[in-house]
């Protein structure tokens, strides 16, 4: 069984998901077996404003452990990550980072902020 440990910068309690990657997809958004797919399919919310289609950065996660266990990122993902606030060398988009190793132990941090340039003051 693969294990995905999720920590939240906003202080929400940590979640741990154990799952069989061979059973992906678990939900209907993001690449099958992606961090987003695993989280949504196990009742853990992760923003994905574009529907998990690699068109925004709201599912940005920071991988603390197991970065090399994830599927490789595409140029499109890298282009989007360029625009993600709080980018780190181990940043990934949750909708694109696929966990297919059944022995993987992945730890991710969900940043407090996503790119949402205006919504903090959406109305005037």
């Amino acid at each position, binding site marked *: 069984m693969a294990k995905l440990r999720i920590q939240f910068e906003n202080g929400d309690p940590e979640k*741990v998901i154990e799952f069989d990657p061979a059973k992906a997809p678990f939900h209907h958004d993001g690449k099958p077996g992606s961090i987003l797919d695993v989280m949504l399919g196990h*009742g853990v919310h*992760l923003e994905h404003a574009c529907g998990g289609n690699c068109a925004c950065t709201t599912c940005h996660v920071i991988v603390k452990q197991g970065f090399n266990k994830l599927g490789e990122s595409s*140029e*499109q993902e890298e282009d989007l990550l360029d625009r993600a606030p709080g980018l780190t060398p181990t940043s990934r988009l949750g909708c694109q980072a696929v966990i297919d190793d059944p022995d993987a132990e992945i730890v991710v941090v969900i940043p407090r902020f996503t790119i949402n340039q205006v919504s903090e003051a*959406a109305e005037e």
Partner: protein
Amino acid sequence: MTAEPPAAAPARRTTLIARVESIFDHAADTRSLFLSLTGGKHQRFVPGQFISITIPLNDETRSRPYSIASDPEDRGPFEICFNRVAGGRGVAWLFERQVGDLVDFSGPFGAFTIDRPPAAELCFIAEGTAIAPIRPMLKRALASSPSPKAELIYAAPDREHILYAAEFDALARTAPSLSYETVIAPAEKIYDRLFELAQARWVTADADRTRHFYICGVGKGVIRLRDLLRGAGYERRSVHYEQW
């Protein structure tokens, strides 16, 4: 947590509610909804951004993105534009909305934007409803001072699906820095035509690699255009794109 998936994740928190103020059909399969925030306040956004609409489907909800097609400087309702797609349940739900209906959404989101245009020639490429984010981006660029040289290449399978045609024709007449061209081609040939055009105009015609590109469309054709331009020597960060 268990290995077996429990019920699907709860819907993302909805932060805003909009009322459908009016509806405009561009074609039988292409529609715009004009939305206003309940409470009468103005929705702020950056040209190119999208909102994420909560779509109720049976016993669950999904969030689906829709680019804002209107100009943020307009003080009235903001506009989203969409077309029917085979199996597209979200868009089918949107087609059922009537004037006065309420729509939950969050955002705006997105990094495919122009806030302040770069000091460079700007080349916009869009097809069909993917003109939605390009339209306010182009207007923002043309409204800047000095107005940059800009080119809009807009493709569709027929004239009926060239949206905002009169508006773009008028812009091309009144904005001397804008060049506007339509490409009419069968749907399966659109990106071949755009690829040929881009290659002839921006790759082989000259050695200028200072242009900035803004490409929006559906499918892998967008990536082909990206790769063509980057492969020809344009800076990675000068080739902006949004693939639907």
